[in-house]
């Protein structure tokens, strides 16, 4: 198990495939130790870092963690709470006590209805995967204009880049406000040309986010960006 660039080696494994001996090595996510051997439990790239072997999955569902900033959509409204689609296996619950407004019992619908999109934070996830969201916090709000897009969870790091450098490049190129939720939902607010270009960039992340050519492809796409091109 040799180290490649950034501590990751480009070795694709499938579930059940042996990665290497488990002696003296810690087992990270996407892998498990079985009979002195580390086996992959997911389809993904083997990663070795700090004596820990893990598998970086190619596809994965969003598993909420406390503190995550997410873009969620209202799925159901009750008298005193909203059920939010958080793009994961479970719906999130936003009680009226954690909404940014003073909500009377039975008046939840007057503030948000089904399909409304919000920027929220995961307040709590219990062992039964009950997810409680909050909208109390700086910047957390209902998103009233713009459009919603999706990016694979495993490519979020690629979309953001180191220190959000790639994300800032996208923002500058399309002249849009872009909010990336930890749940793979991305909010884009700007003019139509910028939004269309941002969508192309997200498609690029989907298609080649795992490839070494991603950076070159993004640079090529940037040449057609509204700020640099004819638009």
């Amino acid at each position, binding site marked *: 198990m040799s180290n490649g660039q950034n501590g990751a080696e480009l070795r694709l494994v*499938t579930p*059940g*495939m042996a990665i290497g001996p488990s002696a003296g090595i810690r087992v990270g996510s996407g892998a498990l130790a*079985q009979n002195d051997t580390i*086996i992959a439990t997911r389809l993904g790239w083997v990663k070795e870092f700090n004596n820990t072997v893990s598998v970086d999955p*190619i*596809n994965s569902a969003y598993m909420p963690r406390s503190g995550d900033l997410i873009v969620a959509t209202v799925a159901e409204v009750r008298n005193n709470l909203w059920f939010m689609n958080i793009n994961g296996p*479970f719906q999130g619950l936003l009680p009226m006590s954690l909404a940014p407004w003073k909500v009377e019992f039975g008046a939840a619908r007057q503030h948000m209805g089904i399909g409304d999109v919000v920027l929220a934070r995961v307040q709590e996830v219990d062992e039964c*995967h009950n997810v409680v969201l909050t909208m109390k916090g700086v910047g957390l709000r209902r998103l009233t204009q713009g459009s919603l897009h999706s990016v694979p969870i*495993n490519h979020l790091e690629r979309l953001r880049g180191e220190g959000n450098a790639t994300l800032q490049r996208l923002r500058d190129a399309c002249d849009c406000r872009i909010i990336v939720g930890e749940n793979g939902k991305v909010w884009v607010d700007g003019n139509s040309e910028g939004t269309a270009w941002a969508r192309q960039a997200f498609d690029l992340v989907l298609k080649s986010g795992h490839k070494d050519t991603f950076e070159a492809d993004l640079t090529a796409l940037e040449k057609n960006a509204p700020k640099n091109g004819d638009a």
Partner: protein
Amino acid sequence: MGGYGDVQLLRDDGLRLDGRKLDEMRPVSIEAGILPAADGSAMVTHGLNVAVAAVYGPMEAHPRKIQRQDRAVIDVRYNMAPFSTGDRIRPGYNRRSREISKVTAEALESVVLVERFPRSKIRVEIEILAAEAGTRCAGLTAAAVALADAGIPMRDLIVGVASGKVEGIVVLDLDKAEDNYGQADLPVGILPNTGEIAFLQMDGDLSPDEYNLAMEYNFKAAAEIHEIMVDALKRRYEGGEN
């Protein structure tokens, strides 16, 4: 099965009617990620069988009564398309598809790390587009590739293969005539890396020696199909096609 002993299924030269050797499998090809709307998908062509599997989830299990507090439930729906066989099949669920859905779900539950997703559901849809004996095995293989493609954590892939007995001789991978007129059919779901059996059914009678030979054939075929499964998954992502 076993009621048509006068039908010739083996040639005088010891080969089968389609020219295969006794331990030879029909050609198998697998493609992963064929359905963009699904979280994971696969198509398996096994001889003339064509099975498509799509995986959705994990998602919140509905209705709530099916939820399990400590694990996910795997909801499998196996269906044969009306045009999949020469005689049109009446569309919809029937006794056979219910049975196959159930045994496939139980086989998949033994490899998927269901405890990672309490209270949720993983939906697996298996559609048989063309059938020529061995559709449950093709469907199981397709479901395993689709689950891996969807990023569902599993401790191994699972391969569906079958052996049987025709004219008193054990053969691998029965075709339609052998399945209809043969004396036994032994479909199994094998975990290729550990050699465990997650699913086993038997139709007809086999002596202990015949059973052992049939299982030997099955394990050999499972190893071959496993390589094709891994290749399909690698081709999808390593080959640059996403």
